[in-house]
């Protein structure tokens, strides 16, 4: 039995997250779509807080709601002749059907499935643990190889993005 606060928070944040995700689809202007995307990411960060994932929620706000939309707004602004209308292609009917079918089927399976102890567990009653130190320990211990590979990936993406958009030198 959870407290009323967490139930209200869950339903409110879920409605905002899903509603603004659908709004990204419906928005007629690309800039509005990016703003709705930010709203969806912030609401999802709130859902992460209800799951006691404090560090991930902060990283979500910094990276997803902060850095990536800035890149997207830059890309929209740098393509001025491409139009801002966020229009649909011919695949709109199969795309919506597939997305809707996926959401409905996974929801039915998730509600019907027998999750055992995990499904019966409630958020209340479990003690809140701060996660940043445990994540840092795991990254520097058990997952150190993946951590180093990720750093190489970030470096490669950084150099690749610079090389791609660099103006051709005259000589």
């Amino acid at each position, binding site marked *: 039995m959870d407290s009323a606060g967490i139930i209200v928070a869950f339903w409110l944040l879920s409605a905002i997250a899903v509603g603004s995700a659908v709004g*990204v689809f419906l928005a007629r202007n690309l800039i509005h779509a990016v703003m709705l995307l930010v709203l969806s990411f912030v609401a999802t960060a709130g859902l992460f807080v209800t799951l006691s994932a404090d*560090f991930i929620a902060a990283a979500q706000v910094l990276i997803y709601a902060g850095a990536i939309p800035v890149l997207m707004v830059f890309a929209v602004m740098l393509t001025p002749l491409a139009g801002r209308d966020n229009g649909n292609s011919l695949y709109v009917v199969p795309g919506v059907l*597939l*997305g809707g079918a*996926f959401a409905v089927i996974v929801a039915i399976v998730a509600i019907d499935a027998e999750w055992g102890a995990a499904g019966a567990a409630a958020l209340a009653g479990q003690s809140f643990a701060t996660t940043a130190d445990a*994540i840092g320990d795991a990254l520097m211990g058990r997952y150190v190889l*993946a951590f180093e590979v990720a750093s190489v990936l*970030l470096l490669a993406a950084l150099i690749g993005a610079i090389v791609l958009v660099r103006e051709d030198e005259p000589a």
Partner: protein
Amino acid sequence: MSVELAHYLTVGAMIFGAGIAIALSKRNAIAVLMGVELMLNGVNLTFLAFSRFGGAFDSAEAPLAGHVFVVFVLTVAAAEAAVALAMAVLIYRRRETVDLDRINLMRW
């Protein structure tokens, strides 16, 4: 009335489904990238829900494995967004469009 694992999985699936619909049906390459980011976001929510309800806080073997996975998803998503948007800008510079219906150089 309490919030259970299935509720979080349902919300994650709905966000993922909205991402699929956007990624498949938008003409603008940047809008397609937004759909992909939404899909990754739904997956992150699912990871964290399983981590919370699956007792990852108590596990002595691999504590917070779901959280670590989400950290890597965030990293890869940031790298992917940087490269994909650079490619969109490059294609626009060459062809004056990011309309995916008109980028058909590699069509068979």
